[in-house]
């Protein structure tokens, strides 16, 4: 309570650096045990003027902490200083928003001067005043007061928890928000206690059973009153001397409670325990599954919650993150088109296109000592073209080596490595490097490239930066020969308009190739160059400088200048980068879709990137009738777009376009009819984060949901973590569907928590998603197995278990009810007390547990091969109220047979030796034995997968029953406890009578025969898919044919642009200003210099020289700027 009040009061946060007393009010306690793994991570904190390792949980607001490269950020920090010049630092935000490119943060100049000087950092006592804790990841407002000055702060100076520091060896930051106040935690939503729908149903049913129990009690109590009145009073002479219980109504009241106690076995208390045991077993099977073990990272699949297993068999919606979940976060240069020829396809000996697999031989780059060994390319023709010296190919790779924002660096082993801010560029530059165009170093004014072993230094004349409107970037360079060239790469749609008219033919060929690449979901960039003459360039440069000088509409004028020079370009070709999907993603998605599970992709990434992944996963195809894209910026726009989409959907499918029919449709939908079936064709919906914000508002959410649910594929891009959760909640609430969320990053926590089932991708650095998840494994493809095999089995087993359990308890208990009518409603039990005690625990618990844990209707292979088998779980067919009543009816019928057959047989009968056998004890033993045999036969019928364990348990239970029976009816035990075991000799006597065995046999057959008949007819007349597959499986087992079930995912070419480029504006400026280049790197004995030093070529010395001179110049310029 106190904590909450404090939160409410906080309207502005004031944090003072290095002053824990001042910041005391922000202290908090960690409550969640599950966070331990994260809370115990270490971070270096400046305490009392020294750096100390502290657990994350002990990091408090106002502390100054040191971060090192590739470390996770522990709290929301104000960046103070870093190892990079100008207080820059790079962070990867994939955990937060799913974007793969690096982001730059820079410290205030005043604080960046603090550097790594511990003593001055310890003295730093600035006060940050800022907004209270909130969940907005992209906004921060506040200011820093230090030394009587106020400095405004914005998001550029803040590093959020969940980011990873990259390309920066260290940085210092001041904690502003810690622990639960961090924006990440504010976004992660509340932890709710998850329960499965079966759990809820079970609770309802148990309540019903209670009601039923009370009803039975009332009926028997009334019966008792009547009996007392009519018969009992006269009979009482034999019973009572006293007058207690004379009043029939009082007697009825007592009887009611007696019967409540006797019949309480109908409310299965052991049910809850057994259910948990079964779930635990299923969880262990998940943990033990070798097919969900990822050897590369030694990661097991893990069921972190043991109470949700059967819900895995009922999933209707999957919400998946993209980055790190569907994709590996690795970009590879996969294909390219150079001068009208594609490279990258692999053909077999017969000239057919083949899939690249492990056997395909990659191109050998050993000729190139500086090649990146991780880079693999399979088309040998490209290397041949290079060896032949095709000038276009040379130009192509030269462009790739020149036109980018990559920074070269050298690692400890002296190897050249690239610091990339976007993985696409990394892939392109690495490809160029392997094909012999090695980007070696850059200064603000030059770019040095080793071209087929020859060092060439280009003068960088201009850098036309990338942004999301231009969708392209260019460099203008002068080569050593003095030629000026413009190299441009960008979106094909934009670039093709800027080409010289002579390119028409090449353009058509290339655009065909681009379509092909796009259809495969590859991220494409078109590539072009332009030769410029000296005068034209000088003129243009003047124009640019002019544009740069003015303040009014500067950006537009610069853009116009860029536009001016980026024209009449000559097309070189196109690149295709694969945003590498995790293994088996396509098959998994195809299979899950076949299982009628809808997959929605929710990502923080850009629309293009998300769509590309959509295509590469076959979630989007060109066969789709329509792909709706919602990207409105206002509620009205979104509404308009939704309306349009709706018209297309319903207009086409029904032919009704008038408003009336439309309204009717809507109403139908609200009534829950399955309108989806009336809409034919495949549709997809892509929605942007800002539009989603409006679509999730109360007035639009129904429409949005309606359309989204009709669409086969839904992709939400640029969504915040909280929106992810909102989408999940929306579907959960309005569709009553079981949802599953899967993700790897911290941004997925909220949706993982709010979905019925949360799955975390484990084995990666960040643990956040896994910690919040219910299940975790290393690869997305395991989801298929988790749902289609484990989930389906769990659901199947649980349902069978419940059906049987209710049946068994009713069959067992209701016998007392029938007996009540023949014993004066006196609450006399039919069975021996010991039998009642042991029945549920010893005689019948294990076989049903074995079934609940081991049963399989179809084997795992067929579960995967026939995804339709998953359907019954989604429709809740195997256990619902109807099934429950059938089970109950079955139980009642069995109890009826169990009681009345012995009743008829015992009525007025004598034993074969003439002695009477119709005594109570023989009656009890006969019914009990029949019951044990009937329920054992029933479980034997229900068990469809008889392992050794099932055999042992079923036969064992019967054996144990008889041995306990004979023990308890033995002389020895009677001699010791004559009052506790009054059944002495009973088993021996009763079970030696043929008569009794005939009764038992009759009871068994009468109880079981209708069940077999019913089941047989059901299988013959209305076979379920499961039945059919079982039959097929039987045939398979006999024949054992080789299975060739692997589906080939079909891909078609598309007519859309596959352009996608993860890049951020501003890097061009960083490069041309030299801000991001380290002074020490330029020293000949370190960094770049070393690579050059090792070479013997004369040109390198020259290069070094120019580097030095140019760099000093550039530094001057920077200062000037």
């Amino acid at each position: 309570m106190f904590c909450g009040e404090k939160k409410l009061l906080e309207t502005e946060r004031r944090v003072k650096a290095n002053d824990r007393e001042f910041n005391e009010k922000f202290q908090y306690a960690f409550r969640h045990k599950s966070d331990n793994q994260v809370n115990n991570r270490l971070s270096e904190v400046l305490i009392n003027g020294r750096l100390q390792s502290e657990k994350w949980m002990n990091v408090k607001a106002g502390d100054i902490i040191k971060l090192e490269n590739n470390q996770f950020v522990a709290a929301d920090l104000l960046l103070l200083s870093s190892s990079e010049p100008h207080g820059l630092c790079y962070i990867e935000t994939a955990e937060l928003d799913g974007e793969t490119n690096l982001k730059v943060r820079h410290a205030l100049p005043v604080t960046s001067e603090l550097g790594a000087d511990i003593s001055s950092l310890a003295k730093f006592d600035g006060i940050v005043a800022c907004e209270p804790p909130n969940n907005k990841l992209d906004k921060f407002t506040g200011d820093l007061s230090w030394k009587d000055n106020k400095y405004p702060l914005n998001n550029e100076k803040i590093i959020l928890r969940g980011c990873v520091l990259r390309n920066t060896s260290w940085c210092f930051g001041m904690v502003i928000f810690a622990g639960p106040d961090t924006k990440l935690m504010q976004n992660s939503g509340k932890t709710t206690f998850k329960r499965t729908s079966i759990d809820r149903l079970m609770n309802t049913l148990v309540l019903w059973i209670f009601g039923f129990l009370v009803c039975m009690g009332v009926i028997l109590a009334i019966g008792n009153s009547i009996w007392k009145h009519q018969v009992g009073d006269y009979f009482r002479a034999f019973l009572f001397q006293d007058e207690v219980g004379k009043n029939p109504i009082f007697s009825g009241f007592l009887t009611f409670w007696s019967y409540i106690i006797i019949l309480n076995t109908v409310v299965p208390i052991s049910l809850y325990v057994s259910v948990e045991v079964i779930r635990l077993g299923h969880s262990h099977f998940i943990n033990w599954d070798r097919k969900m073990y990822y050897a590369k990272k030694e990661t097991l699949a893990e069921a972190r919650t043991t109470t949700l297993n059967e819900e895995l068999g009922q999933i209707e919606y999957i919400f998946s993150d993209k980055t790190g979940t569907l994709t590996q976060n690795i970009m590879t240069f996969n294909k390219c088109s150079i001068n009208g020829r594609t490279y990258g396809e692999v053909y077999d000996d017969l000239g057919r296109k083949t899939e690249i697999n492990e056997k395909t031989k990659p191109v050998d780059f050993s000729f190139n000592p500086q090649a990146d060994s991780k880079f693999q390319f399979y088309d040998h023709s490209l290397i041949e073209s290079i060896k032949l010296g095709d000038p276009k190919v040379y130009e192509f790779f030269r462009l790739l080596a020149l036109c980018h924002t990559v920074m070269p660096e050298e690692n400890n082993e002296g190897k050249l490595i690239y610091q990339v801010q976007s993985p696409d560029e990394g892939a392109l530059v690495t490809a160029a490097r392997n094909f012999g165009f090695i980007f070696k170093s850059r200064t603000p004014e030059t770019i040095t490239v080793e071209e087929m072993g020859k060092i060439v230094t280009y003068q960088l004349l201009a850098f036309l930066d990338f942004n999301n409107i231009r969708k392209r970037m260019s460099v203008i360079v002068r080569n050593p020969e003095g030629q000026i060239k413009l190299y441009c790469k960008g979106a094909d749609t934009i670039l093709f308009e800027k080409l010289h008219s002579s390119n028409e033919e090449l353009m058509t060929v290339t655009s065909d190739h681009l379509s092909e690449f796009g259809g495969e979901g590859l991220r494409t960039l078109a590539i072009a160059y332009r030769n410029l003459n000296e005068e034209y360039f000088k003129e243009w440069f003047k124009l640019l400088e002019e544009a740069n000088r003015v303040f009014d509409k500067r950006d537009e004028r610069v853009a116009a200048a860029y536009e001016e020079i980026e024209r009449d370009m000559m097309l070189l070709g196109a690149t295709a980068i694969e945003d590498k999907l995790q293994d088996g993603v396509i098959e998994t998605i195809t299979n899950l879709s076949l299982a009628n599970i809808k997959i929605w992709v929710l990502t923080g990434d850009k629309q293009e990137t998300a769509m590309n992944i959509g295509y590469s996963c076959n979630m989007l195809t060109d066969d789709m009738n329509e792909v709706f894209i919602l990207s409105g910026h206002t509620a009205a726009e979104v509404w308009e777009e939704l309306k349009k989409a709706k018209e297309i959907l319903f207009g086409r499918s029904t032919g009704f376009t008038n408003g009336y029919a439309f309204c009717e449709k809507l109403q139908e939908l609200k009534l829950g009819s399955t309108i989806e079936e009336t809409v034919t064709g495949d549709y997809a919906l892509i929605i942007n984060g800002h539009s989603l914000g409006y679509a999730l508002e109360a007035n639009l959410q129904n429409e949005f949901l309606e359309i989204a649910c009709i669409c086969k594929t839904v992709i939400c891009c640029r969504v915040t973590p909280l929106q992810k959760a909102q989408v999940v909640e929306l579907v959960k609430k309005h569709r009553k569907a079981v949802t599953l969320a899967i993700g790897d990053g911290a941004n997925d926590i909220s949706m993982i928590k709010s979905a019925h089932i949360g799955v975390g991708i484990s084995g990666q650095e960040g643990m956040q998603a896994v910690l919040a998840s219910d299940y975790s494994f290393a690869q997305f493809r395991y989801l298929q197995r988790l749902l289609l095999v484990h989930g389906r089995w769990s659901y199947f087993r649980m349902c069978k278990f419940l059906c049987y359990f209710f049946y068994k308890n009713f069959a067992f208990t209701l016998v007392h009810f029938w007996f009540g009518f023949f014993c004066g409603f006196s609450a006399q039990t039919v069975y021996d007390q010991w039998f009642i005690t042991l029945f549920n625990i010893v005689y019948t618990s294990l076989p049903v547990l074995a079934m609940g844990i081991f049963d399989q209707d179809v084997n795992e292979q067929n579960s995967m091969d026939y995804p339709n088998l998953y359907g019954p779980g989604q429709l809740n067919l195997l256990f619902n109220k109807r099934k429950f009543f059938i089970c109950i009816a079955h139980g009642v019928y069995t109890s009826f047979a169990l009681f009345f057959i012995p009743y008829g047989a015992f009525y007025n009968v004598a034993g074969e030796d003439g002695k009477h056998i119709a005594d109570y004890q023989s009656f009890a033993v006969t019914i009990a034995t029949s019951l044990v045999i009937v329920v054992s036969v029933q479980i034997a019928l229900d068990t469809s997968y008889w392992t050794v364990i099932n055999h042992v348990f079923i036969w064992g239970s019967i054996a144990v029953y008889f041995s306990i029976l004979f023990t308890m009816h033995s002389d020895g035990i009677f001699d010791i406890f004559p009052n506790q075991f009054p059944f002495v000799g009973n088993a021996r006597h009763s079970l030696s009578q043929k008569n009794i065995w005939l009764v038992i046999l009759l009871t068994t057959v009468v109880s079981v025969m209708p069940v077999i008949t019913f089941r047989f007819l059901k299988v013959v007349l209305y076979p379920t898919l499961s039945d059919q597959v079982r039959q097929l499986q039987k045939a398979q087992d006999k024949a054992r044919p080789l299975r060739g079930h692997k589906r080939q995912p079909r891909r078609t070419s598309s007519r859309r642009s596959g352009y996608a480029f993860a890049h951020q504006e501003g890097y061009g400026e960083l490069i041309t200003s030299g801000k991001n280049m380290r002074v020490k790197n330029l020293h000949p004995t370190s960094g770049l210099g070393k690579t050059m030093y090792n070479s013997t070529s004369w040109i390198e010395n020259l290069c070094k020289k120019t580097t030095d001179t140019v760099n000093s110049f550039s530094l001057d310029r920077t200062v000037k700027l």
Partner: protein
Amino acid sequence: MKSRKSRGLPSKMPDNTAFKQQQLPAWRPHLTPRTVLSGFFTTGAFFLGMGILLILSAKSIKEIEITYTDICSNCSKLRENASNFYKECNCSIHFIIPEKMPGNVYMYYKLHNFYQNYHQYIMSRNNRQLLGEDITNVENCAPFQRTSNGIPIVPCGAIANSMFNDTILLSYYPNSSTRINVPLLSSDITWWTDKHVKFQNPKSSNLSSAFAGTAKPPYWRKPIYQLDQENPENNGFLNSDFIVWMRAAALPTFKKLYRRIHRIQQFADGLPAGNYSFDIAYNFPVTVFKGEKGIVLSTVTWSGGKNFFLGIAYTVTGAMTWLAAFSMMAVHLKLKKKQESLQH
């Protein structure tokens, strides 16, 4: 995996055991038409056969049942009044056995509407006392634990108190003037375990002294040690009638074995047809609780006494099984034909 191994750690990879991988070899039974139909036809045939056999053998049983509540109505009336407790009342019933009752013939008394299965009644006994170890132990015997003077009742409890105490004699009239008492045996009418394990007399040379300091149940005419003074083997707790009574019946209508016909002289082959009479010392009141009592003479067969229920139930079940089998076969064949025609 390699790295773990190289570090000398065991791999985290789960064991490849059939159990953990859910690959245990298993039998997958399936309801195939062949198994189900053949099973049903066999079961049906067996049940039908058994049913007919049971009916036939039940029919072969000779049984005579005489309800004497009304016949001895004056005695019944007398017993309705508790004050006539010590008054004797005898009743004689003449009847004819039309056919010879061959073999072992058993004589039962039958009570109707007597709730021996009533909870408070059935619980009201103490097995430890009946074992003769601790005869003053009257635990659980409410409401017949002690007399008003506090003397423990032996045998205590409602069951013992309400013991059936009519004596029945059977006489045979080979001709109108001769009357022969049919020899009746009271031995071997109890379960062996009851007589030898469950019921034991206190260890003492003299039974009456063993039971000293105890009271007889209020409804009894004589104490436990006088139940059969002629045969000490049949006295006290070991009295067969007592033991039989103490084995409470399951249902409110029941019959209990009273005597066996001793197969000697002209009764060596059973009871010959002819005139008979029961001489009953009418002690047990039944009309107070609207009950009835009767005597049954019956032979037995391999399946016990006369009861048509099992036979009929077996026949009906057998018939139903066949019916089900035929209808299943019809459905199966029809569908098979349909499938074949579809394939063509």
